[in-house]
């Protein structure tokens, strides 16, 4: 292949420097990477996936499966860039994929010699014994195309924009331009997208007279008319997927190192004018560089002044030969023609095509331009649920029945005539029925027997023999064929390989192609950068955490921040984690500590039916809760599973505050809203989530009362006046406060809630009064010492209240409540349920691993849910869920973890102050 640039039109063009596999090269402005490589005579642009066969450029745009590159520019690297559809930029570093050190001299090229031993599916058979995982790392290293570097995750964010229009026209060829013009003229809000830098489609690839004028002369009035009628034209924009509710994803390419742009277009109607591409001709050694798409070669000639060979053989229909042959001759090439039905045809050459051989004939060729007919680009049609029907004459799947909001016109419908395409577009835009397609005689495209390998999928190295093997091994479904042979996978997505693969399978099965069917096309239609999907959701935006108003204070005190339940909270304070946590526990047990409890839910439930409503939603009885009192309760699912726990405080007859766990605020609010509107009068009970309006400072420890007293809240803090599980209203510095006597540490505690903006002053004041801040790790230990649970840690998706020993409401609550029916089922009342217990280790033993299996008689009967070294008690403590655990107190268990067995004894879950004297102080 001696491709070269015919410099007639490019003499004055700007030169662009780039490197390919380390070699400095030059292209010209307007080049794609592929046209630039062809223009300087590069033949081998990459290596195939399995056998590392040399690969040259096949197509002229996104239908090319071979010219895949890793590209770097200005510190940005993108893997698997389609070189045929990516514009060249000055300074680009282009690296071939699947090759080392270069595409031309690839050290793994020798794999091709082993190809007889590496047929389709060989790895499914070879690497089963003794263990797939032994081979997996090496195979994964060899597999794949480009290299994914850190830039993919940390590179430029993707810009994502939502947009709307009345009519979206996909494809700016003659049919698309005609449709867009007619729709815009009818007053519709029209958007026309085309993935090339300019509209015109096949008219620019393959110039021909239209309405008696040159294509460029015809195109300009169309675009002018569209714009004049208010239509928008988006060039370099690819529609790569259609989704429900007429949502179309558009990728708008920009200069290489800038943000990729995704447009989420909501269109009232979509007109697909996506055109058609050449179907490859299957013959021996048809994968050699220099064997190309006929229309691809024409595009390189007309768009980039690149002639893909000087001694060209056309392998195409008589109509195509008559149309395209003179074009290449006028450009200076010698053109020969071979009929599609040539028997025993094979390409000859190593690394590039040098000749064609058939029977006893052989002639020189440096380029073989092929077309076995046209394959309509129906991918988007299928994304939207459109059906396909086999057309034997065209040798192609054509669109059948489809969604009402979708039309398909021009080449994508199978209309290969220019006038008909223009008529199609106009009729689709104006709601008219398109003219029926003329029937045509089929081309002789069934692969002829050949001793040389006949390639169907150039990217994945699938040959006719692989298809035969799959059929022989009864992978006769087209979907199974795809997965067994990898036919049509990766970036090709069946564009070039689909019909030839189905034809080969049909031959093997002795069925018509229509009965073989086709695989389902799914988005994306072309490769798109991963940044397009993640948009700006990188680093802290992947899962943004909620932040407390007290965070500056906490950081100033040395808080080590970490995520707890969707909030950024202090894990401990200071540099040394172990020492800090022990000291914080001791401070809370022996003196006075403080913690930021702002993340706990504060959901107000109000109205004359509020009490009855909460009584229904919560497992525990709330209706009889007096004003000023607080009650602990479970929210259950309808199956009776514990969803959340929290405390309900009654401010007055018609006003409650639900304090749920931090991570469940949104979920509990949503459930309260749902139940409020289901079975209750929504005008008599209302739910306000005011969690973020209030901040909460908790003061805890035996000296907590002294500190709170010094705050002068106007509340009698004595135990007789303000008992545990009570609420009082007061003021701090003129601001209202709600003070709850509830305790998660097991010590005397006051939770002081105040308007968010006033919380920093309150926090500083409490600290100045001698309270020491403690983090979440110390808090977790303190609560575990008391046997208090954390939902989702000490409970799982099967835990019911009775599994925690709370059976009173189940047996005695007479009013209906959510989960009641679930708690009365045989499953709920069965023996063998996992129940929460404490787990003690022998004296001197170390802490149990969280998650370790608890076993008896060699079977797992539960697991460790929480495990700590208790600074208060001086030994390890643990909680666990164990089958019938509450009736197995003092039984010994084996604890299994990572091949090691240890022992533990079942004890009560509460390790500290079981009578509650300290929290009631």
């Amino acid at each position, binding site marked *: 292949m001696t491709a070269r640039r015919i410099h007639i039109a490019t003499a004055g063009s700007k030169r662009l420097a780039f490197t390919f596999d380390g070699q400095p090269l030059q292209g010209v402005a307007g080049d794609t990477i592929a046209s630039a490589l062809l223009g300087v005579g590069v033949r081998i642009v990459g290596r195939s996936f399995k056998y590392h066969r040399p690969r040259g450029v096949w197509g002229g745009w996104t239908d090319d499966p071979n010219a895949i590159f890793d590209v770097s520019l200005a510190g940005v690297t993108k893997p698997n860039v389609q070189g045929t559809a990516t514009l060249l930029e000055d300074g680009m570093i282009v690296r071939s994929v699947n090759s080392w050190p270069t595409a031309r001299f690839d050290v793994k090229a020798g794999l091709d010699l082993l190809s007889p031993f590496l047929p389709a599916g060989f790895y499914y058979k070879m690497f089963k014994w003794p263990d797939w995982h032994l081979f997996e790392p090496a195979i994964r290293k060899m597999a794949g195309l480009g290299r994914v570097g850190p830039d993919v995750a940390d590179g430029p964010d993707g810009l994502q924009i939502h947009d709307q229009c009345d009519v979206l026209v996909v494809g700016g060829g003659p049919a698309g331009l005609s449709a867009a013009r007619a729709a815009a003229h009818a007053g519709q809000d029209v958007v026309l997208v085309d993935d090339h830098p300019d509209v015109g489609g096949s008219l620019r690839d393959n110039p021909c007279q239209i309405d008696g004028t040159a294509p460029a002369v015809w195109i300009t009035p169309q675009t002018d008319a569209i714009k004049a009628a208010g239509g928008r034209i988006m060039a370099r924009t690819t529609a790569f997927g259609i989704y429900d509710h007429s949502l179309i994803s558009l990728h708008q390419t920009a200069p290489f190192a800038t943000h990729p742009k995704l447009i989420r277009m909501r269109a009232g109607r979509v007109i697909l004018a996506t055109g058609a591409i050449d179907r490859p001709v299957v013959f021996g050694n048809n994968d050699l560089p220099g064997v190309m798409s006929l229309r691809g070669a024409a595009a390189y000639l007309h768009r980039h002044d690149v002639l893909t060979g000087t001694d060209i053989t056309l392998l195409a229909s008589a109509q195509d030969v008559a149309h395209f042959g003179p074009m290449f001759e006028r450009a200076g090439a010698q053109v020969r023609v071979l009929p599609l039905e040539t028997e025993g045809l094979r390409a000859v050459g190593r690394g590039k095509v040098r000749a064609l051989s058939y029977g006893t004939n052989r002639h020189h060729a440096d380029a073989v331009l092929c077309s076995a007919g046209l394959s309509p680009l129906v991918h988007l049609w299928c994304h939207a649920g459109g059906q396909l029907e086999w057309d034997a004459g065209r040798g192609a799947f054509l669109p059948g029945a489809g969604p009402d909001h979708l039309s398909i016109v021009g080449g994508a419908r199978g209309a290969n005539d220019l006038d008909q395409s223009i008529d199609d577009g106009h009729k689709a835009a104006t709601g008219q029925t398109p003219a029926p397609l003329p029937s045509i005689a089929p081309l002789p495209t069934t692969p002829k027997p050949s001793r040389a390998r006949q390639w169907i999928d150039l990217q994945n190295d699938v040959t006719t023999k692989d298809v035969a093997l799959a059929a022989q091994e009864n992978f006769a479904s087209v979907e199974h064929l795809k997965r067994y042979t990898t036919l049509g996978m990766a970036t090709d997505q069946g564009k070039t390989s689909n019909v030839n693969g189905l034809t080969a399978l049909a031959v093997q099965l002795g069925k018509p192609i229509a009965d073989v069917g086709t695989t389902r096309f799914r988005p994306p239609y072309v490769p798109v950068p991963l940044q397009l999907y993640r948009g700006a959701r990188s680093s802290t935006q992947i899962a943004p955490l909620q932040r407390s108003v007290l965070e500056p204070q906490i950081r100033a005190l040395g808080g080590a921040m970490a995520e707890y339940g969707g909030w950024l909270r202090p894990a401990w304070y200071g540099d040394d984690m172990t020492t800090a946590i022990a000291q914080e526990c001791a401070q809370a047990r022996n003196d006075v500590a403080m913690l930021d409890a702002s993340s706990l839910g504060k959901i107000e439930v109000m109205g004359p039916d509020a009490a009855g409503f909460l009584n229904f939603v919560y497992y525990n009885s709330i209706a009889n809760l007096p004003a000023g009192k607080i009650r602990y309760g479970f929210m259950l699912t309808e199956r009776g599973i514990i969803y959340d726990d929290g405390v309900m405080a009654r401010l007055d007859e018609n006003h409650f505050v639900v304090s749920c766990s931090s991570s469940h605020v949104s979920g509990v609010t949503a459930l309260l809203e749902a139940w409020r509107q289901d079975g209750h009068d929504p005008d008599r009970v209302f739910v306000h989530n005011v969690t973020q*309006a209030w901040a909460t400072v908790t003061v805890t420890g035996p000296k907590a009362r002294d500190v709170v007293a010094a705050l002068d809240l106007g509340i009698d803090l004595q135990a007789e006046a303000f008992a545990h599980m009570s609420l009082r209203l007061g003021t701090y510095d003129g601001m209202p406060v709600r003070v709850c006597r509830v305790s998660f540490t097991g010590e005397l505690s006051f939770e002081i809630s105040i308007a968010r903006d006033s919380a920093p002053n309150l926090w500083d004041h409490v600290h100045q009064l001698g309270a020491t801040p403690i983090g979440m790790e110390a808090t977790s230990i303190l609560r575990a010492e008391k046997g208090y649970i954390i939902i989702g840690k000490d409970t799982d998706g099967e835990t019911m209240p009775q599994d925690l020993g709370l059976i009173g409401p189940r047996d005695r609550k007479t009013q209906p409540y959510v989960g009641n029916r679930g708690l009365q089922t045989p499953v709920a009342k069965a023996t063998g349920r996992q129940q929460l217990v404490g787990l003690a280790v022998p004296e001197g033993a170390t802490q149990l691993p969280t998650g370790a299996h608890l076993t008896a008689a060699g079977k797992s009967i539960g697991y460790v849910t929480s495990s700590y070294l208790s600074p208060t008690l001086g030994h390890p403590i643990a909680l666990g869920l164990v089958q019938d655990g509450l009736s197995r107190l003092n039984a010994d268990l084996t604890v299994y973890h990572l091949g090691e067995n240890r022992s533990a004894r079942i004890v009560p879950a509460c390790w500290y102050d079981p009578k509650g004297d300290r929290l009631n102080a």
Partner: protein
Amino acid sequence: MRNDTAKWPAPAVGPRGQVQAQGITLDQITLPRQVLISGPRDAAMALAGTTQATGWPDVAMGDHYALSLRRDRILMVGGQIDSFGWRADVGLATSDIGTGYTVFSLQGPRAEKVLRTGTELSEKIPSASCLRLWNGYDILLYRHTATDRYLLHVGSALAEGLWDMLNRQIRMVSA
């Protein structure tokens, strides 16, 4: 246990500084008062002292107005209500939100483009509610004073994240 302090930049203390880009101005603003009122719409409007609850694409005016959140809930901005809880006399539930919502102002001819990075936004698609999901954040979004001035209320615990996301989108839209 991991210390992730460095992963999360320290939050702003006090109002965040103005951000300006071509055709876009982003500010944090302070509203006089925000009160949730739930109950029959007419009674809620009467208690709030307003005649219209702003939805999309309405333009709220002045310092005292109401935002329509759902069929039976508004957010009163400004105005005067002193007692909160269940108001049996009018059958309404009221809660002082204080600064529970942080409010950002996005203004300028290109502000709408920034907003379209995170939600479908069109004057042709009205909504009775200001509630929206923008780039994954639950916000109240409406226009205030002018057709190119947008106010965004977000739960204050996520204000840091929303501010960061707004800045990311402004940078990309302006690039």
